[in-house]
C-alpha cells in the first residue's frame, strides 16, 4: 500500500492494519481511480450518485444520492439517503480524497465544490464544506470537473474560464482540507511553457490521470462553459460553437507539473484510463465527436505517442462515446455512448488492436459506467449534461446495476430517477463501511 494522509495517528494505524489484512488487490478498483486512493477491493456496499437537480422535479436541487447495494440487505437496490446541496450547479464529476474519507463533488456551472463526509456513516454522507470562491481563488478558472486524489491534495481538472467562458483552462490543486494551492494552465498557443506541440495547443481541459511509476500526468480536452451549458441541439446547428472542441492530450511531468508534449487527438478526447499492470505504459481515451478509441502509449524509446486504434459503433452516426472503464487485468475496456444508449465491451489484450466482444443497449441515453474491482458488477447512469440530455420521452434518467459473467450483462436492479423525484443521474462512486473499520 502507498502512504496516505490520515487525520490521526490512531486511525492511521487502524487503516494500515486493515490494509495489511485485506487481500492483495490488482491495482484498480471501480473504474481506475487514482492509485493514491485507498482501494475498495471487496463488495461495494453503497453507490453514491452525484445527481443534477431538475427544475420542477422534487426540490429541484443537485444532490448526492446513496443507493444500498449490499447483497441481502432489506433495502438492496433502493435509495437510502439523499443530501441536497441547494440549487442547480450542473453537478458532474467528483472524487474521493486519498484517504477516502471525503467525497468532493463539483458543479460545472457555478464552480462550487461540495465536500461530503463519507466515512462517519457511509450510508449517510454529510455535506461538511462548500468551496464557493473557486473562480476567484484560482485566477478565473471555471468548471471544476475531474477530482483526482494525490497524497494530501486534490488535483482538479477544470473546463473553462471566467474571462470568456471558452475552453482555455487549467489544472488546479487544493489541499484535502479545502485550501487553494496552485493553478497550472493547460498549454495554449503563445503559452506552451516549453512543451513540444504536435499540431496545436488549445489550452482545453477535461480529465487528469497520473502514472506514478513513469512520473507522467495526462490531461484531455473537451469544451468551455458556453458549449457544455448550451442546448445540445442548438449547438449542433451552431457552426461557430462546433469549432470549439478540444483536440489535444497533454503529457506532463507530474512532479514538476510541467507540460512536456501536446499530442494531437481531434474530436474531444474525454476520459483517460491508464492501464494497471506493471510494464503497461499506456492509457486509453475516447473521442466524443469522432467516436474513436485512442491509445496514448510510451514507445520503445519512451516517447509518448497517440494512436487511433478502433472505431466505436459507426462514427458517421455520432454515437458520442462519453465514459469508459478498464478492467483491473487490463483486458476489457467498456465504452458507453450517449446517443445510442449502448455500452460496448472491447477485448484490449492487444491495446493496439481493440476488438469488440459485446454490446448492449442500456437505455434511450447512457452516460457513466462504474465497475467493481473484480469486474463482475457494472453500474450505469443516464445523464451527460443538463442541456445535452435527450428531450421528451427519451429523457430516461436512471441508475441500472448489472452482473457481468464474461459474456452477458444481467440486470440486477434499476432505479428511475425521474419517478423518484431525484433528477439526472450522473457520476457514481462506491462506498463501504469496511473501509473505515
Amino acid at each position, binding site marked *: 500500500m502507498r502512504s496516505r494522509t490520515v487525520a490521526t495517528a490512531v486511525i492511521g494505524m487502524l487503516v494500515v492494519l486493515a490494509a495489511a489484512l485485506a487481500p492483495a488487490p490488482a491495482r484498480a478498483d471501480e473504474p481506475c481511480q487514482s492509485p493514491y486512493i485507498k482501494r475498495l477491493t471487496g463488495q461495494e456496499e453503497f453507490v453514491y450518485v452525484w445527481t443534477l437537480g431538475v427544475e420542477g422535479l422534487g426540490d429541484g436541487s443537485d444532490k448526492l444520492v446513496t443507493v444500498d447495494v449490499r447483497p441481502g440487505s432489506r433495502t438492496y437496490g433502493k435509495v437510502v439517503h439523499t443530501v441536497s446541496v441547494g440549487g442547480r450547479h450542473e453537478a458532474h464529476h467528483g472524487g474521493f480524497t486519498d484517504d477516502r474519507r471525503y467525497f468532493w463533488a463539483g458543479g460545472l456551472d*457555478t464552480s462550487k465544490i461540495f465536500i461530503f463526509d463519507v466515512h462517519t456513516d457511509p450510508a449517510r454522507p454529510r455535506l461538511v464544506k462548500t468551496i464557493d470562491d473557486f473562480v476567484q481563488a484560482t485566477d478565473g478558472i471555471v468548471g471544476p470537473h475531474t477530482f483526482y486524489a494525490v497524497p494530501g491534495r486534490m488535483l482538479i481538472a477544470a473546463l473553462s474560464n471566467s474571462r470568456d467562458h471558452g475552453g482555455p483552462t487549467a489544472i488546479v490543486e487544493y489541499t484535502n482540507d479545502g485550501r487553494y494551492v496552485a493553478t497550472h494552465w493547460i498549454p495554449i498557443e503563445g503559452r506552451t511553457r516549453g512543451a513540444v506541440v504536435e499540431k496545436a495547443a488549445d489550452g482545453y481541459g477535461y480529465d487528469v490521470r497520473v502514472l506514478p511509476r513513469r512520473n507522467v500526468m495526462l490531461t484531455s480536452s473537451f469544451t468551455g462553459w*458556453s458549449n457544455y451549458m448550451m442546448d445540445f*441541439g442548438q449547438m449542433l*446547428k451552431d457552426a461557430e460553437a*462546433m469549432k470549439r472542441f478540444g*483536440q489535444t492530450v497533454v503529457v506532463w511531468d507530474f512532479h514538476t507539473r510541467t507540460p512536456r508534449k501536446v499530442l494531437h487527438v481531434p474530436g474531444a478526447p474525454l476520459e483517460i484510463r491508464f492501464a494497471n499492470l506493471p510494464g503497461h505504459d499506456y492509457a486509453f481515451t475516447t473521442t466524443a465527436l*469522432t467516436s474513436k478509441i485512442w491509445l496514448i502509449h510510451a514507445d520503445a524509446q519512451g516517447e509518448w505517442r497517440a494512436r487511433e486504434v478502433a472505431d466505436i459503433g459507426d462514427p458517421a452516426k*455520432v454515437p458520442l462515446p462519453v465514459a469508459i472503464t478498464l478492467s483491473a487485468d487490463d483486458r476489457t475496456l467498456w465504452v458507453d455512448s450517449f446517443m445510442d444508449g449502448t455500452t460496448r465491451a472491447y477485448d484490449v489484450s492487444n491495446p493496439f488492436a481493440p476488438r469488440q466482444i459485446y454490446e448492449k443497449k442500456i437505455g434511450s441515453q447512457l452516460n457513466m459506467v462504474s465497475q467493481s474491482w473484480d469486474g463482475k458488477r457494472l453500474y450505469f447512469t443516464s445523464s451527460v449534461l443538463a442541456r445535452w440530455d435527450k*428531450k421528451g420521452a427519451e429523457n430516461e434518467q436512471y441508475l441500472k446495476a448489472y452482473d457481468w459473467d464474461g459474456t452477458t450483462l444481467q440486470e440486477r436492479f434499476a432505479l428511475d430517477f425521474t419517478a423518484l423525484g431525484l433528477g439526472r443521474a450522473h457520476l457514481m462512486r462506491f462506498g463501504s463501511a469496511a473501509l473505515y473499520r
Partner: protein
Amino acid sequence: MLGTLTIRTAVAAALAAVLAASAPAGAHEPGPRPPAGVGPRFDYEPPVPGTYRLPPVKPAADGGVLDARGARRRLREVMAGRLALLSFIYTGCHDATGCPLATAVLHQVRAAVARDRELARRLTLVTVSFDLARDTPPALARYAEPLRRVRGPRWEFLVPSSGRELDSILTAYGQSIERAADGTLSHVLRVYLIDARGQIRNVYGVDFLDPRLVLADLRTLLLEERALTRDEAALARIAAPPLGLPPVPVPADTPPTAARIALGRKLFFDRRLSRNGTMSCAMCHLPQQGFTNRELARPVGVEGRSLRRNAPTLLNVAYVRQLFHDGREVSLETQALAPMLDPREMANPSPGAILARLRALPDYDSLFEQAFGAGPSLDRVGQALASYQRTLLAGNSPFDRWYFGGQATALSAEAREGFRLFTGRAGCASCHTIEARFALFTDGAFHDTGVAWARAGAGESVIAVELVPGFVVPMARQVIESVGEPEAPDLGRHEVTLDPDDRWRFRTPSLRNVALTGPYMHDGSLSSLRDVVEFYNRGGAPHPGQDPRVRPLGLDARETAALVAFLESLTGETVDP
C-alpha cells in the same frame, strides 16, 4: 553613504542600522525591509498593490510654511498633484520610536522609490517641523542635507510660518503636542499618505510604520491613478469621438463623469450581479471579441438557457436609438436592467434583489456616492452602465481615414472598389447609410431581409454538422431535435408593435467593426462576411414582405471579394475596455 549622516543624538546608531537595512538589496528583494532593531517588528507579508482599496479619510489641510531656504510656501502647493508622505517631527527629538523613526522610514521608502521611475516622478516626501524656535530654515537645511544627498524623489523640509499657522496645521491633522517643563516636546507619531487630489488615504502610527506597507499603499494609489486616467480618457473620447463618428448624445440630467464610467465598468464585468454568480454583461459582450461573442451564434445565459438572438456588439452603442434587435428599448439607461432581470440571462429574482446585493458588497462602498452623491438605485445602476457603454467608441478606421480624413492610401484599391459597389450597384448604403460628416452605416430602421422568415420554415431534413475540421456528418433533423429544445419562430419587430407589416423585421445593425463581430444576422446564422454578401447577392429568401431592396445583385466573385474587403476596412481603433 551612511558615514556622511550627521545626526546629533544617540539615536544615530539606531538610525544608521535602519538606513543600512535600506541599502541596495539583493536581486530578489527589490523592496525595503522593515527597520531592524528600531520600532516594531513586522511579521507578515505586505499586501499586493492594487488588490485593496484605501478609502479617502479626509482632505489634507493647507497652511503657510517656510521651506529650508526660507521661502514662503503653502503646504497644499508643495504636494499639489502628487502623491505625498507627510510627517511631523522636530529635529531635536531623541525618542528612537518617534521622529528619527519617521525620518528613517521616509528615507527607506525614498531609497526604494528611487528604483521605480514612475513612482519617483509622482512622489513628494514632506517633513514638517513643529519646533518653531529651534527648527529655523537654516537648521532644517542642515538636517536635510545628508538625507537629500541620497538619490530619490523630492523631499521637502518645512516649518510653519507662524505660531498661528502651526496651531492651525496641527489641529487640522489631529497632531497634539505637549511641551514639558524642560522644553522637550512629545507627540504621537503619525505619518500621512496623501493622494494627488489632496485626500488623506492612510495614517500610519508607530506600530505599522512599515516601509513595505507604505510602498504597497503608494503603488496602490498609483494604480488607482492609472485607472482614473483610463476613465478620464474614456470621458474625453465621449467629448471628442474618433474620426468618422458623430457627437455622442448624452443625457442632460446625468452626463457621464469619470466616476460614473468607472462604476459602470465595474458593474459591467461583475459576475456577482447574476442570480448564481456566473454571468456578467461581459460574458456575452466580450471586450476581446468585439463586445459580442464570436464563438456562439446565440448566447447562452444562466444555467445554460438559450437566448433567441445573437449578442449585438456594444461598440458604438451610444448611437443606437432603439435598442435590441427588435428596438424595444429606447435608452441605454433603462435597457441595462433588462438582461439583469431576464430569467434566461442574469436571472436576478427582482429589481430590489440587485440593489440589496450591491449594498451588501463591500467593494461598492462609497462608489455610488462618489459617482452620484447618493447610494445604489436602479436608475443609478442604469446610468452608470450607460455612461460606461457610451465610452465604447470605435472609429478612425481605414475607411474613415480615407473618406473623412482624406488619406488616399488608407484604403486598398480592392476596398475602394467595394465602396463603389456598396454605395452603388449593390445598394447596401440605402440601409447602411453614410452621411457627409460621419457614418454609422445604419438607418436605424427595421427591415425584413428574409433571414427570420427562412428560419421559421420547415428547414432541411438533414443538416451537415462539422464535428471536427474536415469531418462533416449529415445528421437527421430528427436526431438533432431529440437533444434540442424546440425553437419558436422569431417575429422580430412585430413582437413589439404587433403590426403585421413588422413581421420578420429587425433593426439595421451598424457595419462599423463588422469584421470583429461575427457571426452575423440577428440569429448569428451566417459565419463570415463572405456568407453575408453571398446571401444578399442571392436576393435573400424571397417571400412576400421581404424588403424590395433585397434582390439578386448579380455580383461576381471579384466583386464579392471587393465588398468583403470594404467591410473589413470598417474596423476602428481598439477600444481600451
